[in-house]
């Protein structure tokens, strides 16, 4: 079995991209994770879901976390959101240690989590009012946010009447309305069809360009990660550890045409190497017995 040499051309950056990364790294760190670990109690002793995860995310950076199923990427984002508690390590937001959920770390979930009993407008107002803003002021803000994602005319409809893509657009502005430092997104477009997903990715980049927010985005879709991210954090499973942090060499602004650019393809090849095990390394072979007549082969 001759495995190809690991690709390296994904590391090659144009001057513009390098400069961009330098500018990015000069910005203040918004979210910092120090040696984060999470163990769960299992039948045969504790199971380590995450081990020694450390990362720094700078202001207005868009970071994607990618990894095979079971690598603990959902656990990671839940810990950052404050919905789960780490067994070791620290989480710092703007240099201050942070515990428990708060509106400084807004989250968009994979499932639709709009409040079904509230209209679209009131959903967006929710976070603002929890923070003590008056009804009138919150309403004004909510309408501004809805205008930003082109949903003004749906302000008074209930979520059940919206399509999946529209629901997630509302969920994004609902999370953005209370002005979070970090927007956490847990496979937010996973339940959408391919076309809607592509649209939503473009929308997200548009929103991110216009709003002062740092985004941590979890996905298992390689193209999505490359298309969106400044940096991609690749996790590996059992235990969940950082395998590699890739600075995406595809220049911004991103567009759908770049999917076939050399930088994009090189990055994609590298991600595939990291995430998809080579066939010759898969030990599990299905014990299938031939059930079709000879000569009726499908190749």
């Amino acid at each position: 079995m001759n495995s190809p040499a690991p690709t390296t051309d994904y590391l090659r950056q144009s001057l513009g991209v390098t400069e961009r990364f330098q500018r990015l790294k000069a910005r203040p760190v918004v979210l910092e994770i120090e040696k984060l670990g999470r163990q769960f109690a299992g039948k045969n002793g504790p199971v380590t879901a995450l081990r020694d995860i450390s990362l720094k995310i700078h202001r207005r950076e868009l970071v994607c976390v990618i990894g095979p199923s079971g690598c603990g990427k959902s656990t990671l984002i839940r810990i950052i959101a404050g919905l789960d508690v780490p067994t070791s390590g620290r989480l710092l937001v703007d240099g201050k240690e942070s515990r428990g959920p708060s509106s400084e770390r807004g989250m968009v979930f994979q499932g639709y989590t709009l409040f079904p009993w509230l209209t679209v407008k009131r959903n967006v107002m929710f976070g603002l009012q929890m923070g003590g803003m008056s009804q009138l002021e919150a309403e004004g803000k909510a309408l501004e946010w809805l205008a930003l994602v082109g949903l003004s005319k749906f302000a008074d409809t209930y979520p059940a009447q919206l399509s999946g893509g529209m629901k997630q657009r509302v969920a994004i502005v609902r999370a953005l309305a209370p002005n979070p430092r970090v927007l956490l997104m847990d496979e937010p477009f996973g339940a959408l069809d391919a076309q809607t997903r592509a649209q939503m990715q473009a929308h997200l980049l548009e929103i991110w360009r216009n709003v002062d927010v740092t985004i941590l985005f979890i996905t298992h879709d390689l193209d999505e990660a490359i298309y969106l991210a400044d940096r991609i954090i690749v996790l590996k499973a059992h235990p969940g550890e950082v395998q590699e942090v890739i600075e995406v060499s595809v220049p911004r602004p991103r567009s759908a045409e770049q999917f076939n650019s050399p930088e994009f393809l090189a990055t994609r090849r590298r991600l595939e190497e990291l995430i998809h095990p080579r066939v010759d390394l898969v030990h599990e072979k299905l014990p299938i017995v031939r059930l079709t007549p000879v000569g009726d082969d499908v190749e």
Partner: protein
Amino acid sequence: MLSSHWLTVGKEPAASIRFTLTVLSFLLPIAVWAIVSYVPWIWHPLIRVSSAGDVAWFKTGLLVERVVFAEENLKVVTSGGHAAEGERANPVFLPAPHQVAQAFITAFQTKPILRGDRWLHESLWLSIKTIVLGFVFSSVLGVPLGILCGAYPPIARLTEPVIDFIRYMPAPAFGALAVAVLGIFDAPKMAIIVIGTFFQQVLVIGNTVRRHEPALVEAAQTLGANRRQLLLSVIVPSCLVDLYNDQRILLGWAWTYLIVAEVVGVSSGITFFINQQAKYRNFENVYAAIIMIGLIGLMTDQGLAFIGRRLFPWQLNPPSRLGRFLRWLFPQKAVEA
């Protein structure tokens, strides 16, 4: 080609057939009742004497068993007298449908005979008052406690075991106690309804609230909701529709305790009316009163379902069977809502 058999699992019949079936579900029992009442050779175990003949103890209008009637006639005929005449009849406790239908009007006109007897409308009003007050008292405590149990496991652990224990004690068993503590008039009756409803209510409401969507709570947490806001702005509204339907079902249970509650202490309300009318052997009034209780219950439930549709506009199609029931009752209006 879809299966077109009329009985297919989970397949709803067409709207027109559904309506017919609903009507039939009421008409079929009435039809059986009518057959037993009006077809003389079906059941009719008695003879109503129309002419006594020479039987000494027969009187016109007397109901006697068929065997006795035949025996007496045989005796009289063999001794050379006139045979009694009569026609087959049902016992007095089974009035015919038209008699009961008439009783719906006459029952309201039946004068109270003794001092302390009441008109039917007074009795009904008293019963409704007892039910509503008992249910409100129970809900004022039971609903908040149930919500707390559902939202906070420690509170559930503290209260639910003992409530689970008490709810198996039949509410009527507390009757004597209630009278001793609360006197003989209305208070002990409400107490029985409260006891019968409250403990179930806490458990039912608690269960409903426990089934809240955790993802919505998490979403609200990341939007900055504190503990109080989570309970009042997320958990309660997210369960509101189910809580409302629970209350409707619980109100039905409260009705089943009514009859027991009303014989506690001084018998009152619709139960007293029924008992008195049974004593006077006005069984058509008894049936009318029982059916009225059913109708009041049905109408209350339908009314609440109808209100529910307006209270919860975010529901596209309420899944309840009663909701569909309602659309049959108010076809145009409700479909638009």
